[in-house]
């Protein structure tokens, strides 16, 4: 079967399954969510193995950042599903009196989820949880750059969920392109901006709504007067503790004052030595770089002429093992490649400024990131940061942790993406909120209809302006006489 035929067949099958209505009842949705929950629980060891194979991901990261978050998502959806599915009554207002109004969520239909390689389990399952909770049929295309996880998902999902409505399609660029040529009711893509553009333009052909979870350069501003030790630990946890910097919300670079930089550097080094020892290439707690393409990319960022002498810590790598150690750089030129593209790796440039406020101009000169971080105790600076920096999210005094809160929308803005998910937002992302207005046959307002007369117009004006007398006249069928 050619890739085109296969993609068309999958879309067709799912459309048929969805048309039968089986994904609509809460019972079906709950059963799938429980299936996914069981899968994440019973198959923990297998999932960790696949993640280790794909990324050398430490078991702790696999559990904490992927498996337990998927389980939480399932539990949160199970707990809230009935509430989400219930239509919400809203005030109908006087204009259409008497009437009732409500908003009901319905599934979009058949949706396509394209996942990424760095959190291949989480970024596949989390959107799928949302799609299922919202009552859709779904195709999941896991990333081929994480092949062990991809084939594990292809093997496991049919065992734990209804494969007539939830399918996994594996493959690379051509299989993905074929899938994108089909008509979907929504496409949810996690990845980079270049492919995001392609997804959006292919979706345009079918007028398909799209959610894009992209990346960016997430800046960390470090103010003086902070608990440097705690700050350094939290920065390290968000950087090297998250897939060795290969995460969309990893701190990309630091901005701090010239006066604080030496101490910050010293504290970071201490923390790194404590976390990963004196020979980080041997530490089992660091993910490796996903493949040799990315390894070479990161090496070239480090090896650029005007950058390589700015390395102040780390910089070691092992091409055979695809490992690069936590690397700190001081004041690389702003026009260097490492400062122009998203690093997505264990290199952390530190840019110094004279006054901490100058960091804002630097951040605003770049495209809007998925997250922006600030370490400070200064409440005025916090306020200015929250109000002056636009990003998917702004976090004060920590990094990356916001994605564990299911009450916060997780998504980008500008170059970092469009649309959000997690918690209720996942359900919303895959739903259509249908407005339902119910009126009755009583209360005929003659003033609405032609032949239009000045008397009728004055009643309509009054009603629209909220004039009670006009409303009463309208309901009573004024003006009397005539048509």
């Amino acid at each position: 079967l050619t890739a085109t035929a296969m993609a068309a067949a999958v879309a067709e099958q799912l459309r048929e399954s969805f048309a039968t209505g089986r994904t609509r009842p809460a019972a079906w949705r709950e059963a799938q969510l429980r299936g996914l929950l069981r899968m994440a629980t019973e198959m923990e060891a297998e999932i960790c193995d696949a993640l280790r194979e794909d990324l050398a991901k430490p078991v702790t990261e696999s559990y904490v950042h992927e498996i337990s978050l998927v389980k939480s998502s399932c539990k949160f959806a199970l707990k809230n599903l009935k509430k989400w599915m219930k239509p919400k009554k809203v005030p109908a207002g006087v204009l259409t009196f008497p009437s009732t109004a409500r908003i009901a969520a319905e599934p979009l239909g058949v949706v396509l989820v394209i996942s990424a390689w760095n959190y291949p389990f989480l970024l596949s399952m989390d959107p799928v949880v949302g799609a299922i909770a919202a009552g859709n049929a779904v195709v999941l295309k896991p990333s081929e750059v994480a092949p062990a996880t991809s084939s594990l998902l292809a093997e496991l999902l049919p065992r734990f969920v209804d494969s007539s409505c939830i399918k996994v399609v594996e493959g690379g660029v051509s299989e993905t392109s074929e899938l994108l040529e089909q008509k979907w009711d929504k496409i949810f893509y996690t990845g980079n901006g270049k492919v995001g553009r392609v997804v959006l333009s292919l979706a345009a052909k079918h007028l398909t709504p799209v959610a894009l979870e992209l990346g960016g350069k997430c800046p960390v501003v470090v103010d003086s007067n902070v608990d440097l030790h705690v700050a350094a630990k939290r920065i390290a946890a968000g950087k090297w503790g998250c897939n060795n910097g290969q995460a969309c919300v990893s701190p990309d670079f630091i901005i701090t004052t010239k006066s604080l930089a030496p101490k910050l550097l010293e504290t970071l080094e201490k923390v790194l030595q404590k976390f990963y020892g004196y020979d980080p290439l041997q530490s089992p707690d660091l993910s490796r770089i996903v493949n040799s393409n990315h390894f070479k990319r990161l090496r070239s960022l480090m090896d650029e002429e005007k950058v390589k002498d700015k390395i102040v810590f780390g910089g070691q790598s092992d091409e055979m093992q695809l490992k690069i150690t936590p690397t700190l750089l001081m004041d690389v030129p702003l026009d260097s490649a490492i400062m122009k593209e998203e690093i997505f790796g264990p290199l952390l440039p530190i840019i110094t400024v004279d006054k901490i406020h100058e960091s804002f101009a630097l951040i605003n000169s770049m495209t809007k990131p998925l997250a922006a971080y600030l370490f400070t105790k200064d409440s005025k600076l916090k306020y200015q940061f929250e109000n002056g920096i636009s990003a998917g999210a702004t976090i004060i005094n920590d990094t990356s942790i916001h994605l564990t809160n299911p009450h916060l929308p997780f998504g980008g803005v500008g170059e970092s993406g469009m649309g959000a998910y997690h918690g209720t937002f996942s359900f919303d992302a895959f739903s259509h909120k249908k407005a339902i207005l119910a009126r009755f046959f009583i209360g005929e307002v003659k003033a609405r209809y032609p032949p239009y007369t000045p008397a009728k117009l004055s009643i309509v004006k009054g009603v629209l302006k909220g004039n009670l007398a006009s409303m009463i006249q309208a309901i009573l069928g004024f003006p009397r006489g005539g048509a």
Partner: protein
Amino acid sequence: MGSLAEERALGYGGLVSDLREVYESGRTKDLEWRQSQLRGLLRLLREKEEEIFDVLCEDLGKHRGESFRDEVGSLAKSVEDKLQNFKKWAAPEKASSLLRLIDSDCSQPVYLAATPLVAFPATAFVMPEPLGVVLIFSCWNLPIGLTLEPLSGALAAGNAVVVKPSELAPSTAAFLAANLPKYLDSKAVKVVEGGPDVGEKLMEHRWDKVLFTGSSRVGRLIMTKAAKHLTPVALELGSKCPCIVDWLDSNRDSQVAVNRIIAAKWGTCAGQACIAIDYVLVEEEFAPILIELFKSTLKRFFTKPEFMARILNKKHFQRLNDLLDDPKVASTVVHGGYFNAKTLSIEPTILLNPPLDSDIMTEEIFGPLLPIITVKKIEDSIKFLKSRPKPLAIYGFTRNEKLKRRIIEETSSGSVTFNDAIVQYGMDSIPFGGVGASGFGQYHGKYSFEMFSHKKAVLKRSFLIEFMFRYPPWDDSKIGLLRHAFRYDYISLFLALLGLRR
């Protein structure tokens, strides 16, 4: 930037960068500024009411009764609603800090923080911010409403805005170009007039959001161009809005239904509206009764030609004429059918069961021709709708609660309205927008504000409490602690922690 004429020749780069500068200055974010813009819009609608009636009459032959009801009046009400509520909408919203979780392992419900323990304590909230510089493409049939409603939302949300009115309603476009700069901050709100070439040039640039109201064909072009810059878009497209008319026992009910259907077809821009009733579905036994009622009521309502809008232009007039070309279609006309090419008006025309594969039944009519399609049982209309593209609105006239429920649950559309039509457009409490072929993105009321906002997640922590098991190097005891934390099993966690140093 140069004059607008120069800008047109130069591709609008200057216009866009000027607006970006204005936005970056923070001027439009200021709540006072937003309030002044909304007030300016209200003043415009009040002071220029007569002129608005004039241009709408010029462009579309709309009677002032219709213009007030559908454009000026409902708009003023909705801008007023935004004035009263925008500060509330713009305020940060606390993301709930307590979550009651019933763990399958525990018999007792456990109250705990929404973020797992590793992030405790933290305050979390959602902060709306403007997207930045946005572009609104309006349409010709409700040229005031479809421009100013989204504009009011974009301004309430704190954006800088470019509005491109449709060139097919030229008097209105000229009116907006002349007056918006007078009543609003002309540095932050721009009107760009012109046709498709201008639209194309504008779309070469990056915008923080684009709203397009119009046809699917152009919608595709807009979205394709937007993709290059990752510009998020909202599309309000057309569709065939069906009206299901159930058997109505009482004469009064039937009359009310007919009144409202007529208003929603011929009383709304002569059927040239995305939410106008496109066609009717009715049981074959009820159809003759309905048709007779239509005939008599139409006669009573449209006593003068000026009470119905005219067709926009020759092209659309010809398009509608051509729908009746096919003799198989023309023979099904049961009322009306007179086309006046000189005045571009078409009398209210009703057809009974034209062929389902004819153009009139496959394309959006957007005119004063009403096909009536009969079914054996009214429930069959649901199956009829399911096999067709999702419309912007589905209407149902019925007292049968079961039928209403089936319509809601078994069909999909932007919205559903029972026992009336079009009125959902003027409401501020429900979202307005399509699904599937009728588009995506919703607005009106608070949704207009949200359409042009980014909901930024904000999380704040202190340095005070640190949980060492968050950090490497990893060992079994730490992993064990993390498991407790992520299972929200705080009792075990607390006991375990007692034995450990920070």
